[in-house]
């Protein structure tokens, strides 16, 4: 997994590439934490266009961010989820909590 972060006002946009599993998930977690500590982040937008695999390690991170951003009135949005990624997100119930756009 590789990722790139970008800021737009209070939005943190992360473009993720590759396979999202246990490896490097803590690294991404830390990067988000640092970015949120640096300046106010209200919304997190995850661009999954180039993600070809995700499991519950990735979903755990999304849920944690959703919960903590909700506390400050923010939200998580997922864009460009491919078919299998969308299926996993749907099965996990995350679709009910946040806006998820398919590729």
């Amino acid at each position, binding site marked *: 997994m590789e990722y790139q972060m970008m800021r737009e006002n209070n939005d943190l946009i992360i473009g993720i590439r590759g396979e999202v599993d*246990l490896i*490097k998930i803590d690294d991404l977690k830390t990067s988000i934490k640092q970015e949120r500590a640096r300046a106010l982040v209200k919304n997190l937008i995850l661009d999954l266009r180039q993600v070809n695999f995700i499991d519950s390690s990735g979903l755990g991170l999304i849920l944690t961010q959703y919960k903590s951003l909700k506390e400050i009135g923010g939200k998580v949005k997922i864009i460009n989820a491919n078919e299998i990624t969308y299926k996993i997100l749907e099965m996990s119930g995350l679709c009910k909590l946040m806006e998820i756009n398919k590729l």
Partner: protein
Amino acid sequence: MQIIKNSIKDQATIVKNHLEICLTSKAENVGVARLALAVASANAGLTINEVEELKVAISEAVSNSIIHAYEGDESQKIYIEYIELAENICISVTDTGRGIENIARAVEPEFSTKSDRMGLGFAFIHSFMDKVEIESKAGKGTTVKMIKKIRRA
């Protein structure tokens, strides 16, 4: 190993392919296990979607061993066995970690002992595989056995 043994018996023990993989309990090996079994199961005739499902199940089982059974200790071993039969793919993922005290509880969706995890590992395994059996002994380890049917066209 009961479901796998039964399955082997049913299909007159014609093993079409057999893999045994031993992995160190490191996070990067989740991808290694997933990739190896994805290639093998695609060759066995699973569809692209079925391979994707199997990949999630493997990922969850191996991640469980790393996170829960060994609690991050990277010096331990995870054993994977893959057997391709005429109609089934049988996979077992075994660790010698702490074991699951309450299997019924562990497989409940959204139950997790770790706050930053969704507790969906076993739910995904059950959804994506045709048969699942979990054997575990506290302090001894856990084996997750999974069967995926090969629906040949």
